[in-house]
């Protein structure tokens, strides 16, 4: 077993992993501090999940290391609920140290879109390109973590979250602000949902807290058209 302690989402997490390669993903987040909690994996657990993955995804490639990484993320996500923190699928970018999170199903164009922001906005940076942790509460924050997608886009930063933007592919570019009532089912679709009833209740409660301080938008996006960046930027940041 290999052991390391990392700092993510304002918590120190002890990780006991089977494969040393898994821990290399966490290098930027390593700390020499006492862990708030620990998670571990076992060889049998990984092998079982690996076989299940091959059965349910016959046309996809994976490895025991990737499976272990996924198992660790899931265990950390479920424990983080005790610290009012949940996992949301999306790409988070920071501009003037405020976070903007683009949420959509895989393949919609989140990464492509935020890379346009990197090119056009000085000092913008990607907090997490795949599954950031969100600390809920009076000041909601979006956090970098080692689990940042296959392109490894992200950094070890935590910034206040200003807006969540639900993306959808479209022929033309159009963005509008939506109510929390419209946003809530969309958030549920992309949040990590534990199987245990008490944990999903906690997740729902944490999502509800976002309504107090976060703005929500629906963005119909065509990344092939040049104005897609301006459409989003002018509404989200503009001259505010």
């Amino acid at each position, binding site marked *: 077993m290999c052991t390391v302690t990392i700092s993510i989402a304002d918590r120190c997490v002890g990780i006991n992993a089977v494969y040393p390669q898994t821990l290399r993903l966490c290098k930027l987040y390593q700390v020499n501090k006492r862990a708030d909690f620990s998670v571990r994996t076992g060889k049998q657990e990984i092998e079982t999940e690996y076989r299940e993955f091959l059965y349910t995804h016959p046309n996809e490639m994976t490895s025991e290391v990737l499976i272990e990484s996924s198992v660790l993320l899931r265990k950390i996500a479920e424990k983080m609920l005790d610290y009012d923190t949940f996992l949301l699928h999306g790409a988070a970018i920071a501009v003037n140290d405020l976070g903007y999170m683009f949420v959509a199903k895989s393949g919609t164009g989140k990464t492509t879109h935020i890379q346009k922001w990197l090119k056009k906005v000085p000092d913008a940076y990607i907090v997490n390109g795949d599954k950031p942790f969100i600390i809920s509460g009076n000041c909601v924050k979006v956090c970098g973590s080692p689990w940042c997608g296959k392109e490894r886009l992200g950094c070890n930063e935590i910034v206040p979250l200003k807006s969540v933007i639900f993306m959808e592919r479209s022929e033309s570019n159009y963005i509008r602000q939506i109510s929390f*009532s419209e946003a809530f089912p969309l958030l549920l679709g992309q949040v990590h949902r534990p*199987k245990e*009833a008490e944990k999903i209740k906690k997740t729902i409660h944490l999502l509800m807290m976002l*309504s107090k301080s976060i703005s929500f938008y629906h963005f119909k996006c065509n990344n092939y058209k040049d104005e897609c960046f301006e459409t989003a930027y002018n509404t989200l940041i503009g001259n505010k």
Partner: protein
Amino acid sequence: MKLKYMFETVEIDDEIVCVPIGEGTEKLHGVLKLNKTGYDIIKELENEITIEEIVSRLSSKYDTDCHIISKYVSQTIEQLRSFGIID
């Protein structure tokens, strides 16, 4: 008949939203958005019950004619059945 799954309920902007939990998390995709009467029907369905019993209880609660309530309850039950939420 009764609900097949458990739900957690929250109120958002005067709407009642029921989120599937437990086994429903895997089987159902989405949430139920209900008004007050729809929510009352869902609450009645947490235990085994007939349409006639629901109609009777809601008629008493809202002091409304059974005939009016019956049509609404039947429509709601059919819709819930089409979502696969009740037996």
